[in-house]
């Protein structure tokens, strides 16, 4: 059943905590050198899946392989070949950035000279050289996340697991981290990342699985998933409020059914290809109606999520801040 070339593979993974089933038969296969994203709301089972894949938690049933090695039987060998950036910060607050990386290097058993070199290289690569001798407690959230990621890379693992790597980061730090991750992939690393941010999966992933309540409810490329939630729609934004009704009449005349949002001055209609778009644009122009915008819009992954699960990605478990805490409470 091993797909040749798969860096990460899971078959029917199940994890239960008492009566609660956190992960309910999840399977996937990730080819070497690609980015795989597990997308889902809080409590969907993402963290539990990552913990099983990274040997921190034993699957109740099912099998998982990382770099061709079984995560239960060959746990130690798996640990030598993968890096993990967990959701909660896993660096030591009372050590400096450099001490943290050297500690990890020592624990991996790299020789001492290599430990020093690798630590300094990683600090440089993640722009932490200036903060190398500062205690982590004084780091910003973004710096901590980068150090955490750096710590996962000390032994240059071919497979890297990231559990919600950008949760809690400001937009700029997020985009920067995405850049780092893209570099890693370019260099041949296989990435497995969980996220509840749809745009993050859209930006980074070659393949996405959408999970909810411990089950995979959809998988495919970002494009395939968007297509699945329906065709693109035609969106017309009218400039002047007074002309909205008239514009709506014209669009309705062309395509039949429309959705009108008077406050936003927006008309949305099922798109029937580019032909309809040019025809409608011409008719509105003839009628002398000014438009802010007209175009075809693909559904966002947000729409995909809504279509698939019947609820918004972020709407669940308002009190819980993470998968981990939701599941922690149930243990």
């Amino acid at each position, binding site marked *: 059943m091993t797909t040749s070339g798969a860096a990460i593979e899971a078959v029917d993974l199940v994890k239960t*905590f008492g009566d609660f089933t956190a992960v309910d038969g999840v399977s996937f296969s990730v080819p070497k050198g690609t980015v795989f994203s597990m997308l889902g709301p809080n409590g969907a089972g993402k963290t539990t899946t990552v*913990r099983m894949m*990274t*040997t*921190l*938690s*034993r699957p109740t049933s099912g099998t998982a392989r990382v770099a061709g090695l079984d995560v239960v039987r060959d746990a*130690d*060998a798996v*640990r*030598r*070949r*993968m*890096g*993990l950036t*967990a*959701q*909660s*910060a*896993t*660096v*030591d607050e*009372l*050590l400096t950035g450099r*001490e943290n990386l050297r*500690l*990890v290097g*020592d*624990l*991996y*058993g*790299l020789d001492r000279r*290599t430990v020093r070199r*690798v630590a300094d*290289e990683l600090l*440089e*690569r*993640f*722009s932490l050289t200036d903060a190398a001798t500062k*205690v982590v407690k004084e780091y910003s959230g*973004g710096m901590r996340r*980068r150090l955490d990621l750096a*710590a996962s890379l000390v*032994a*240059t693992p*071919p497979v890297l697991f990231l559990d919600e790597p950008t949760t809690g980061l400001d937009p700029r*730090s997020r985009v*920067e*981290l995405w*850049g*780092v991750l893209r*570099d*890693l992939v*370019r*260099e*041949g*690393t296989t990435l497995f990342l969980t996220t509840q941010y749809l745009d993050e999966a859209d930006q980074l992933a070659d393949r996405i699985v959408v999970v909810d309540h411990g089950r995979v409810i959809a998988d495919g490329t970002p494009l395939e998933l968007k297509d699945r939630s329906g065709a693109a729609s035609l969106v017309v934004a009218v400039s002047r409020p007074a002309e909205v009704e008239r514009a709506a009449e014209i669009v309705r005349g062309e395509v039949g059914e429309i959705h009108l949002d008077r406050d936003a001055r927006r008309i949305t209609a099922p798109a029937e290809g580019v032909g309809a778009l040019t025809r409608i644009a011409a008719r509105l122009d003839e009628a002398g109606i000014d438009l802010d915008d007209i175009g075809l819009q693909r559904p966002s992954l947000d729409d995909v999520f809504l279509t698939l699960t019947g609820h918004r990605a972020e709407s669940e478990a308002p009190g819980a801040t993470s998968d981990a805490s939701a599941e922690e409470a149930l*243990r």
Partner: protein
Amino acid sequence: MTAPTTTTAAGRPFHAEHPSAAGTSPVRQISALVRRNLTHIKRQPEMLTDVTIQPVMFVLLFAFVFGGSIVVPGVDYKEWLLPGIMAQTMTFSAFIVAIGLNTDLGKGIVDRFRSLPIGRSSVVVARSVSSLIHSMIGIVVMSVTGLFVGWGIHHGVLRGLAGYGLLLLFGFAMIWVGILFGSALRSVEAVQGVMFTTVFPITFLSNAFARTDVMPDWLRFLAEWNPISSLVQALRELWGNDGIPLPADSALPLQHPVLTTVIWSVGLSAVLAPLAVRSFVNRTRD
């Protein structure tokens, strides 16, 4: 974060530059982790108050506040008290292990350690070693304090060292208590609360601060069978801080305090170690 791209821009493939992890010896793992734990003490020296200011305060309180009304025949109370406080300090190494371990367990750092190819026991062994070092710092501070208030070792170097050796052996047994409490309880506050209400009174229910031969019979029985009393009696005899000989009707453990301390330490370790290990393994399984 502008630099990350420069490494790749320079055309050096990241993977080729680094060696892969070869696996490591337990000694290397443990020494790296001990160094980490000791760095914590260096960064937060106030962590040492439990083995420095606190026992010194106890010496001063008992020697000068209560001491006047406690009479131990044949010896100055301050001299008699010091081995008691040292034994108490060593008993509290259970606290140090429990709090250190529990603090780590409550943080993501344990996940980091567990995701690395290291022995599961390395984290616990390193915590034990650094806690014993922590406690030994306290013993050194107490010895120096003792010299100032009139305590001393009167039976030579060998018996003096034997006393310190017994302290260390007893500390080793206390570590298992610490691992058990530290793994089983869910928060540092719980550890502090539970241990303060159990271990702390047990150190007082002994011969550490007051004579047992004047206690009511039932209390005397408990106090004299308390492992801490054996340790204290052994230290007093080895170091010559015991004043008049032990009353003939003392309980058996106090008649052979060195042997009993060894038996207690080994026995407690034998019983508690499997429980402590099981508790730690359960705590870190998922």
